[in-house]
């Protein structure tokens, strides 16, 4: 009796372990499927359009004759948003993190942290609406020649959107620096600012940089806010007051229209999404790499 019971429960143990394991391997299946789909459909696309035309062409007009499939306008549009939003979110996010970890009282922290969480939880479409109906009119007052849809408005709103993420990741990195290092600095008679500049930031450098990379990667893949605010005109430009189109916004535009399945226009979204996937994947891996490679371990 006892033995049977034991064997049964042993079987049960193994059964549950296998089920649990199966669930966690589902994530690998997801990645494999993403890569498989993007690769096969893009392959169809590149059979017709040479990959160099795609990567280095400066004209993107896949839906109208004469068709042309140079992705650079979309890439530049995306970069315009990424750079603009990074210029806003990176310095501000770092300063907020420094304030939170160094200067803020615990009461102030208790107020600021939840507000940052709420800001991080607001859906991107809401930010898009905010850009379109609040930021853009202000921009058009300052720069009367700005178009209704412009890259500047998109950058600002994406910057606001990723700001909480930068702030809380940098805050985590700064919090992880041992107190003893800080106190050592103070013992030498330095001011708070000097401790931040000379001790905190260098010690937390890997965490800070990896949070910057993650933020940039997030801005790269951001979709709804830029679709609403930055427009749908693929242009090879660096003027932030003009309407542009990002890679993500293009994908949305195609899926909103009634492009027939299987055609070359339809395959473009897989090629564009493939490029998007590769770039964000590289950034995420890079962020992960510096986080682990250059982490200063204190114990």
């Amino acid at each position: 009796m006892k033995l049977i019971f034991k064997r049964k429960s042993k079987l049960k143990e193994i059964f549950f372990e296998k089920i649990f394991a199966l669930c966690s391997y589902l994530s690998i299946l997801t990645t494999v499927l993403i890569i498989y789909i993007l690769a096969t459909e893009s392959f169809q696309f590149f059979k017709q359009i040479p990959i160099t035309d795609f990567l280095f062409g400066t004209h993107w007009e896949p839906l109208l004759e004469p068709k042309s499939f140079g992705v650079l306008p979309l890439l530049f549009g995306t970069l315009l948003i990424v750079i603009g939003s990074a210029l806003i979110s990176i310095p501000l996010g770092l300063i907020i993190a420094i304030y939170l970890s160094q200067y803020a009282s615990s009461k102030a922290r208790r107020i600021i942290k939840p507000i940052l969480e709420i800001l991080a939880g607001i859906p991107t479409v809401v930010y898009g609406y905010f850009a379109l109906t609040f930021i853009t009119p202000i921009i058009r007052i300052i720069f009367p020649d700005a178009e209704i849809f412009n890259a500047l408005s998109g950058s600002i709103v994406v910057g606001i959107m990723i700001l909480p993420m930068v702030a809380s990741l940098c805050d985590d990195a700064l919090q992880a620096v041992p107190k003893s290092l800080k106190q050592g600095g103070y013992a030498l008679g330095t001011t708070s600012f000097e401790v931040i500049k000379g001790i905190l930031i260098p010690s937390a450098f890997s965490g800070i940089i990896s949070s910057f990379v993650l933020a940039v990667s997030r801005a790269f893949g951001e979709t709804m806010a830029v679709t609403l605010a930055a427009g749908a005109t693929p242009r090879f430009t660096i003027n932030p007051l003009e309407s542009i189109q990002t890679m993500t916004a293009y994908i949305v535009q195609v899926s909103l229209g009634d492009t027939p399945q299987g055609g070359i226009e339809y395959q473009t979204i897989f090629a564009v999404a493939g490029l998007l996937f590769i770039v964000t994947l590289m950034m995420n891996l890079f962020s992960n790499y510096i986080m682990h490679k250059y982490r200063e371990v204190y114990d």
Partner: protein
Amino acid sequence: MIKNNLKNRKKIDSIFKVASKIITWSSLVVLAVLLYHVSITGISKLSLDFLNNFPSRFPHKAGIKSALSGSIWMLTFVTLISVPIGVLSAIYLEEYSKKNRITRFVEINIANLAGVPSIVYGILGLAIFVRFFQLDRSVLAGSFTMSLLILPVIIISSREAIRAVPKSIRLGAYAVGATKYQTIRHHVIPIALPGILTGVILSMSRAIGETAPLIMIGALTYVAFVPETVMDPFTTLPIQVFNWASRPQAAFHEVAAAGIIILLIVLLFMNAIAIFLRNYSNKKYDF
């Protein structure tokens, strides 16, 4: 680097302190501005009719009944699909898996999946669920797609909750003869539950606000009915907001703002539950 000029150094320090304080608080003002702007634009459109009407070509008649019910339908199925899988994966990775290369690979993979742009998940859903499994633009296709999107988030937050359970609890259970499964089932999970639920609710609020993947699988259509089966087409709150916001007429922008108010109320409600659970868990098990 450090000059022998105390007055100047202290001055720099206090300037930086004040500047960082001003910058921090003024960034938070953005939230207030956003909420204020949305409220004054949308409040006039907010009414019971707005909740009970279907979308319409006329802004004064437009409502969010189909979007709200679509969101609820989708959220129900996303919960049913993603929570068991996510929590079980987290249990496996935290409690069973050996620290070897495969585990490391799964971990890196999950971290990367969490960073994949949501629109790529939309393309995945389009190819797999809509076309391959021929689920069309149904509630089910949307729910599967959204589940894949939030799975990494659920796994990561559940793992943190499970990791926070002290080792002594497990050792105590083993000491009285419990098997591994019994230890996890009766001791680890109950203690980690509030933390797991917090993560689950926060990822649900992500699912409610996501728009891009659903647009990819074709949920942006004129839907003037409430879904009745899982195979029915549907629309959701953020998609409806996007639809209204992308129209040029200012009247539709007011309707969009009203939709945003409803969306934010739902999100705020979910966040409040998450915060409550977090405080509850902090109090109950203080090791």
